[in-house]
């Protein structure tokens, strides 16, 4: 069984299934969204392991979605019991995700817990350049930091969306996107006030940005000419629909590819989308890695066989996979 965990409206999953069917896969199971483990069984021992979710598992690809355990509402007068259930079963769902990640697999639900701060630390340790980064609520520190650079930016530590509920079908969507933290914003802060901390980074001038898809040691890189369009100068994900950024294949220098491989090994993530910046002085600066990044954008603009290679990996057809990767270089 080739097992895929995703969402029902996730286009790259369809693309990989196209390749799986074309290459002759006959048993594919795609689970979507929220997958309940209430009725499933996990068996682990020294010989092997088995989850009833997927029967005999040939390969596993985590793309989207999550495991849950539905806790029945018993009108329990002791909330601590319910809290205990929630905590207790979170270890079961995470443990199941870990079990699957140790199979022949790509990504895992656990990769969603990757930490941008940890990753900056590890990137620097792997020899990659990272932007000067400050995490603080101390206004004096922020002012001193801002004085070092022509401009600074701010972004979320981990979560960039807040849905502030108004009622059952209305909410205020708060976006914590990468933004310039300008002089006026800095001046408006009073040193006497006690804020919560946030992330600040030096603003990097960009020649272009890089989106690099890493997949079990292979790297597919794309240059994004975001500087051409004003709307995307700060954060290229803010796509201008009328004039999409020019996106083309990019060949990273070998030593940089090796550093990225070493970085991904350090953070134990077997697949992910890495964001980097190339500065006007040709420095390559690491920004972050996203475990489940957009694929069609990269494969579609660069004509990279990413979806086929994922399908081949799931089919244990790696010899041909490697050869093809070399061919396209």
């Amino acid at each position, binding site marked *: 069984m080739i097992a895929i965990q995703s969402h029902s409206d996730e286009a790259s999953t369809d693309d990989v299934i196209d390749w799986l069917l074309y290459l002759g896969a006959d048993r594919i199971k795609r689970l979507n969204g929220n997958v309940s483990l209430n009725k499933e069984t996990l068996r682990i021992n020294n010989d092997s392991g088995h989850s009833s979710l997927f029967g005999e598992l040939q390969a596993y690809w985590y793309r989207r979605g999550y495991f849950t355990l539905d806790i029945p509402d018993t009108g329990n007068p002791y909330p601590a019991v319910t809290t205990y259930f929630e905590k207790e079963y979170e270890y079961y769902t995470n443990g199941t995700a870990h079990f699957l990640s140790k199979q022949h697999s790509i990504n895992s639900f656990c990769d969603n817990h990757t930490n941008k701060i940890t990753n900056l630390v590890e990137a620097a340790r792997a020899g990659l350049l990272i932007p000067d980064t400050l995490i603080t609520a101390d206004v004096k520190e922020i002012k001193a930091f801002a004085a070092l650079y022509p401009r600074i930016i701010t972004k979320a530590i981990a979560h960039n969306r807040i849905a502030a509920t108004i009622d059952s079908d209305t909410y205020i969507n708060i976006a914590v996107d990468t933004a310039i933290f300008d002089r006026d914003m800095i001046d408006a802060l009073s040193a006497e006030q006690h804020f919560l901390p946030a992330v600040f980074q030096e603003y990097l001038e960009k020649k272009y940005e890089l989106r690099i898809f890493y997949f079990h040691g292979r790297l597919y890189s794309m240059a994004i*000419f975001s500087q051409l369009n004003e709307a995307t100068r700060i954060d290229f994900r803010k796509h201008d629909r009328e004039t999409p950024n020019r996106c083309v294949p*990019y060949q990273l220098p070998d030593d940089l590819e090796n550093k990225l491989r070493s970085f991904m090994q350090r953070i134990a993530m077997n697949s992910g989308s890495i964001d980097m910046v190339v500065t006007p002085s040709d420095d390559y600066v690491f920004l972050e890695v996203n475990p489940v990044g957009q694929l069609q954008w990269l494969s579609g603009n*660069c*004509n990279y066989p990413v979806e086929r290679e994922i399908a081949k990996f799931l089919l244990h057809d790696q010899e041909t996979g490697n050869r093809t990767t070399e061919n396209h270089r």
Partner: protein
Amino acid sequence: MDYLLLYSNCVLVKGANRATICDLQKGDIYPVPKLLADLFQEDRALDLALLKEQVQDETASWLLQLIDTLVASQLAFYCNRQERKRFPALHTEWLFPAHVSHCILDSATGRLDYFTESFIAQLGKLCCNFLQLRFFGTPAITHLEHILRLIKDAQIKSVEILVPWNAAYENAHTYAKWINEYKKISSLICWGAPSTHVVIPGVEAMGYLLYTGEQINTATHCGIINQGLFSTNITTYTESLHFNSCLNRKISIDVQGNIKNCPSMTDSFGHITDTSLSEALNKPGFKRYWHITKDQIAVCKDCEFRHVCTDCRAYLEDPEDACSKPLKCGYDPYTGEWEEWSQHPMKQKAIAYYF
């Protein structure tokens, strides 16, 4: 800066008289003079120092102006020698996971009785997810809705439908209802309508309803080549480099039920009542046209539109030559002029042969 480098998804295609830069990311085509096109090394990089050395005076300033336009149109950028090797050419493999990419079903009567669940399963085995249904006779509403319901839950991704325009259907709002109800319809084209116009524009090429005044009552109407049929994208471009841009991975069933590569061609590979699509596909000769690329076709090989264009092997300027120019193309790449193909004196013999 050392070079002007074309972005790798903006490809230079040289023709006899001029060239085009095909922007495969954004879907635009820019004609460029041959003089400029010839200055690009490997069709990608223009050495700026060399340009200043080789070209003098007015020509130089004219070329520099054109180069500025290319940069302003975001087709090319300036880079140095070190950077050039960081921007490889586009990978040219055609990446399309299907044994058959699309299927055309013709009906003279308005019925497609073989279109059942098991027929859809046959398409599924071939990884065929795109369909075109061409009705030369009016299908009964119940019959077409039965077909659309079968498609609804199947692996089929989209279907284009051609039907004769019918006043009673129009009055009952049937066409708009189909578009609203069956979301897999990419376009519904009603021919023989009182006027030609877009009724529903659709979104991202899905759910498009068009009325056309043209009479499209047989497969012999097929094979037209014009600019409106160009498709400027990576899939079309890479396919055209290696395969025939019309017939590759195509399967069809003509009005008689014969399984063919194309309904307008004579070779049949079995009848749908006794032959499966896979059987027909694997018969010798079925794929004989799949590898005829534009670079092998007379005249097309000198055309600057050859990698965004379709093709036709059913109606040829010289019916005896499998690599002859498509009959219904009125473009002359040697002069850069479009003419009405049916009026052309050179084509009259072939027109008499086919029609």
